[in-house]
Each structure stands twice: as C-alpha cells, then as structure tokens.
C-alpha cells in the first residue's frame, strides 16, 4: 500500500547522525526518509528540493505539513534497556502496552531485557517476543540472556540466539557473579559481534540493600547499597574485557567512580560502551526522604521560580536498582555524558503493578516506569543550559546505535521513517493514571515538566499523536 509522500517542515530539525541542527525539513515516502536537510535561508535545502522535484516528476507530489513554531523533529529514540515483562509478567506490562508507552515517549526502537518468564534464553522464547512485537507501536529488538535462565551457571546458546535476532546478551536484573563464567561469556560472544551487557552489582557487597548507602539511608533506617557495590563489579569486568577483547556495555551506571572507570577504559582503547538512565542523571537519594534535591529539582526551580513541593517519605516509586545516588554522582554522570564517556541514555523502563509498589519500602519491587517522562525530564537540563539539545538527542539516537551497531536513530536518506516530533516548551503535569504503560511507578507523579512529545512516527505512520490522546 503506498501512501502519499510527506514533507515535514520545522523550525528545528536535530539529527546528530548527520550533524544537523536548525530549521529544515524531512521528506518521507514509502515508510522511509527520502531526504532530510537544513533550510538554505528561506528556501528548502538542496537535498530536500531535489527529492520533492523527483516526486513531482514521478506523479507523487508530497503533501506539506508545517510544524508549529518551536517544535523539533528528531530521529525516533533508541532505548537500549527496557523491560517489557512479557512473557510471564503480563500484569506489570505486555509487549503491546510497553510499546504503546514507548511510542508516547518518542522511542521508536527499544531493546528488551530477557528477565521474563521464561527467560529469553532459547530461540523459541526469542521468536515469541519477535512475533508478539509484530505490528507493535515501536520496534522491539530482543536482548538474550548470557546464562540459561539467568542462573549465572551455564552459558545460553548464544550463537543460535544471535542468529535468531538477539542484538546483545545480558543477565540484567542480576550480575554475572561468577568471574569464570563472565570470562567465558566474553570469549564466546566475541566472534558473534554482539556486546555483553552487565548489570554491575557485587551481590555480596550489596546484600539486601534498598537504597544508596549514605546519610539518608542512615536517617531513614534503611539498608544501604554502597557505591563500591557497582564499581567493584565494573572494575572486575573491565579487567576481563582487557584480557578477552570482547565488546562490553555497562548498563545503568549510577556512581562517579564508575564513570571514571569507563573513562580510563576508553582511554586504554577497550571496546567498552556505557549507558545512564534519566533518573540517575536527575534525581538523588534524598527523594526517598521526600526531599527533592538534585539536577531536576534545581532546573525546575530555576524554570518556575519556586521549589518543588516535598514528596512523600518512603515512596517506593523511588526504589530502583541501582539506587538513586547523590548530587555529586549526578554531576559526574552529566559530565560523562557531555564528554562522551557515556554513550547512551537508556530508560531501564521497569513497570510494576500498583500492589508491588504500595507497601513498605523494604518489601517493594525495584524499578521506575520511565518511557513517558524521559524526554520531558531531561529537557529541564537543556532549558537551563546544563546539557546541549544536540548532545541529548545524540545520546538517545546515533550514539546508542553506534555502540551496538544498530540501524536506528538516524534520518539519513534511506533510513526507516522513525521519528519523534516534540514541543520543548509545552508544560504538562505527570499523571501516571494516564500512562499508556501499565506501570504507574514513577517518582515524578504530580510534577510539572516542560517539554512534550507531540507525535511519534514509525515507518512513515503516526503511531502516537498527542492531539488524539487524553
């Protein structure tokens, strides 16, 4: 079925993969980007004009859509780390609800972690996920388990899983504690060309900690999770990468020491990439005590001229693995993002049922439902000059794509027409009851953010339009 080609014109097209940032346009035909370029003065750029002329000549003139002033077009976001919960935990999320939530957040390609039930450690389960994701509102790329059942004891059939479509391997949710097994995993995966993704957590050091170990955990009487619980495991892994030369990706880093280790590893030329989540960039452990400090709070205070109201104490929506850290850690993560040490921002979207999050802090599940607040929360840093727009978009598009060698996050001619259109200035209040995700577990409930996804396009089709949504 052919639909009419479209010309989207905007005051700002940001595509770091082509070093574009300015007024421009995108031409979409047959589900792909036909042309994309910046304006030349008041005229369309040469690539775009040429493409339009060609379409005219072919008898398929493009329909023009001028975006409202201020709206931004960018490649649809690529999220390297999400939990879709299906198969096995459909009460928390399904592939359908998760991809709908992704679309609402501007994410067009998402990589789902294998800690489902059954774990994605066999071709059968992997193919189930791919099948269930057909026709979904975002593209799903499965990550397969490093070990069978994520048991940390035996390697999964990585070669077959790679052939079946896995884009990376991870036992996320837990670390690969056994150093020998991690070494074998790195060795075995190396010729497959896929990265090993590690959730850096020294299980013994962390124990049953529920939040960052520090002054706040002391005051709240909660068991703490020391920073060394992350850095010790990361250091071990980097040594194994050094001796095996396999590709390695550090998931959701949260502490300053970890950023430093990655910086040093990259300096040494190791094949290492790393991601951080929006919540680790923006929030602090004080949020557990209801005290809203850190980069997001500071930015919103600056934007609105008044501090954020205090939140509830012991709100289990702040409970996440790894935990929210200190303002100094947030600053180190931001510096790492700005200097290229961190390759990607990934949400670690982790939906849970209301019941899993409404009880005592120690009992609650770990995780934040992040798709639908990620962009708006991160834009607070852009609005206050702490993070350039292009750097933010790059961390959500071209850089994660490059880290894992994926075809996504670009509006290069020929690419699938996956894009996000957002209004960086529209204000809205986070209301989890209106999320597309089944997971309402966000610490940002009731907070007014500035910046909103207006449309998400997948393969040239609109899969989310804020004008139709509530």
């Amino acid at each position, binding site marked *: 079925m052919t639909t009419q080609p479209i010309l989207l014109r905007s005051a700002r097209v940001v595509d770091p993969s082509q070093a574009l940032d300015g007024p421009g346009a995108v031409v979409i035909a047959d589900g792909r980007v036909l042309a994309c370029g910046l304006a030349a003065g008041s005229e369309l750029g040469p690539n775009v004009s040429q493409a339009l002329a060609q379409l005219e000549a072919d008898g398929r003139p493009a329909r023009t859509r001028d975006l409202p002033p201020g709206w931004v077009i960018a490649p649809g976001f690529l999220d390297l780390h999400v939990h879709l919960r299906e198969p096995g935990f459909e009460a928390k999320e399904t592939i359908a609800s998760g991809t709908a939530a992704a679309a609402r957040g501007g994410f067009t390609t998402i990589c789902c972690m294998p800690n489902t039930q059954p774990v994605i450690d066999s071709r059968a389960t992997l193919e189930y996920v791919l099948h269930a994701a057909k026709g979904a509102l975002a593209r799903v790329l499965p990550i397969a388990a490093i070990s069978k059942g994520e048991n940390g004891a035996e390697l999964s059939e990585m070669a077959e899983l790679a052939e079946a479509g896995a884009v990376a391997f991870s036992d996320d949710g837990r670390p690969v504690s056994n150093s020998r097994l991690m070494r074998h995993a790195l060795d075995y995966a190396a010729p497959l060309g896929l990265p090993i993704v590690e959730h850096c957590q020294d299980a013994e050091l962390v124990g049953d900690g529920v939040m960052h*170990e*520090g*002054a*706040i*955990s*002391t*005051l*709240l*009487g*909660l068991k*703490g999770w*020391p920073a060394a619980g992350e850095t010790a495991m990361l250091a071990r892994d980097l040594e194994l990468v050094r001796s095996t030369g396999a590709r390695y990706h550090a998931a959701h880093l949260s502490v300053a020491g970890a950023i430093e280790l990655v910086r040093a590893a990259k300096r040494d030329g190791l094949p290492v990439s790393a991601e951080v989540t929006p919540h680790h960039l923006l929030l602090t452990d004080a949020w557990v005590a209801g005290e809203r400090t850190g980069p997001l709070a500071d930015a919103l205070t600056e934007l609105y001229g008044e501090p954020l109201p205090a939140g*509830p*104490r*012991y709100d289990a929506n702040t409970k996440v693995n790894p935990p929210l850290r200190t303002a100094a850690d947030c600053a180190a993560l931001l510096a790492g993002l700005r200097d290229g040490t961190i390759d990607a921002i990934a949400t670690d979207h982790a939906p849970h049922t209301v*019941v899993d999050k*409404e*009880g*005592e*802090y*120690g*009992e609650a599940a770990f995780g934040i439902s992040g798709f639908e607040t990620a962009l708006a929360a991160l834009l607070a840093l852009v609005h206050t000059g702490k993070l350039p727009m292009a750097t933010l978009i790059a961390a959500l598009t071209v850089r994660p794509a490059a880290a894992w060698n994926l075809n996504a996050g670009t509006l290069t001619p020929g690419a699938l027409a996956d894009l996000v259109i957002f209004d960086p200035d529209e204000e809205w209040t986070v209301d989890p009851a209106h999320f597309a995700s089944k997971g309402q577990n966000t610490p940002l409930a009731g907070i007014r953010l500035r910046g909103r996804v207006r449309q998400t396009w997948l393969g040239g089709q609109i899969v989310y339009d804020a004008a139709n949504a509530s």
Partner: protein
Amino acid sequence: MTETLETLATEKLALFPEESNAHLPHRRHLIDLDDWTPYEVQRLLDRAAYMRDVLADPTRRLETLRGRLAVTLFYENSTRTRISFELAAKKLGADVTNMTAAASSVTKGESLRDTVETLQALGANILIVRSSQSGAPDVITRYFRGAVVNAGDGWRGHPTQALLDALTLQLRFGTLANRHIVIVGDILHSRVARSNIWSLTALGAEVVLCAPPTLTPPNVADAYTSRPVPGTGAQRRVTVEPRIERALEGADVVMALRLQRERQQAGLLPSLREYTMRYGLTMERLQLTKPCALVLHPGPMNEGIEIDPDVAHSAYSLVEEQVTNGVATRMAALEMIGLAMGTVGTAQ
C-alpha cells in the same frame, strides 16, 4: 511556665508537670521526632510527668479517648511495649484491641494496605504500629484516615521510647542542655538510638555514639549535624567515638543498647566475646565517668553481654524507672493525638 515556654532558650527547658492538656503539640500522628521543636518535646514531657501522678491513682481514668478504638498492630513481637500502650490507651478511656501479625491473615499474604483498610472498616481510629520495616507508619498514613502511632519501625524510629528516656533523665537532671550522653552498642540497627538522637539533641544535649565500626551507620554524625533543630535552628551535636573508654570521658548518661546475637552470624562481629570485651558496660568502665554516670537501657537486656548484671542492678541504673515512665509517656502521646482528632463522631 505556659505561654512563655517558647521564648526560653533551650538551656532553660526543664521539667514542670503540666496539669492542663491545652499545651500539647498539635500533631495528628506520632511517627518520629525529627521535626519536633524543643518546645514540643518539653510540652509532651511536662504532660507525661503529670501523667505519672494520674497513674499513681489506680482508679483514676481520663476521658480523652473515650469512644475511640485503638488497635495495636504488631508485626514484631513485643509484649512489654504493647502492654504499655494498651494500659496507656485504656487509662485515657479508649477501647483497645490487639492484632499480632503472626496470628492473622498476614500469614496468608495480606498486604499492609489491606490489613490497615480492614481495621479501618472495623472502626479503628488509632493504629499503634510496630513493624520490622522502616517507614511502615508513613506508608500507613497514606491509607488510614485515623491517627498512626509508631511503636517502632525497623531501624528507623521508636519515638515513645526516646520520649520516656528523656522524661527519665529530666526527672533526675532537670534540664538536659549541655549534658553529655553516650549511646553504646549496635547503633546501625537501632531505632531507639535514632529517635533518641533527635530528641536529646533538640533538648540541647551532646550525644556521643560508641559502636564497633561495622555497627556504626554510614555518615552518621554528618547526617544529624547537617539537620538543624526545628524552631531554633541550632546545630545538633553528635560525634562518633569507637573506643568506649574515650567515649565515656565526661559522660553524664550512658545508654546501653541490646546486642542481637544474629549480628555475629551476619559477619558484622567476630564474636560476642570480643564485643563484650571491647564494648560491654562494666562497673569498671562506668566508674571512669566522674561523677558516676547514670545508666539507661531500652530493654530487654542481655546481661553479661552489653551490660554487666552489677551495673544493671546498681543504684546508677534507671532501667526500672524507664519502664514505669513508659506508660505515662504513652498516655501523654496518645492524649496528644486524641486531641488532634477532634470530637468523637466527627469524620476525619
């Protein structure tokens, strides 16, 4: 000593039994003492001191909680605290019933929220909660329309214990300003220590924490000294000194905390023996303090481990007084929240 209390400097705050309940803090819940001003603490202690006299007459009963149903909801066993609260509530005229988790639907997996909503539907106005989970009372306030009183939550707080400790000390010292109070033992896991730090520093005392390094909470001195006393803005004085002989120098009061045997199994201590050698409160160590310090213990005591029997039963020990003062303190606390509830029969 009524309207002018709040204008007094902390140094001047001392115990005056208060016949009127009109000056109690206005607080709907009693969860912890972190946000209490020194004046609120003193008001409550003054009222608790009066309650001791009420208790001296076994036939006397107050009416503040008449028509109210207080339920003790205990997820952890504690007969003495539960009885103390039950007696206090009854003395104020409340109906009281008890729920222990082990004997309830909690064993069938009933959630905290469902348990609380069920009790609410049964007419409970006041929940007196003890939980092994820090923050449980806070969570309960989100689902329960009535009043919540924390009878101890995990490692976080045990406000009525701290208040009865302060009462016990004020009965001996008058004012606690500039008093040197040493807390010895497993501070890391201690809700008694944490609540006491709030109230003692608010009343102007200096607190010294003495514990093995593995049982000292992370950043503990900083955590408290960086949070000024509400109402006065004074800095709280908390220091850490792991050597007991040093810690006891100049001490007016030593509070010994119970050591759980499980701490050794968890790898935090090499042996109970070494703990006792290094931290046990012996008469010899006690006599390093001049004049001899008074001794508190929240109970129950492991005699021979954190405290020697001869210390526990000496003239310096205030342990029995603590227990007696517990009912009076809880009466004042329950009266406070009872008054904040408004008249019986009105919706909250």
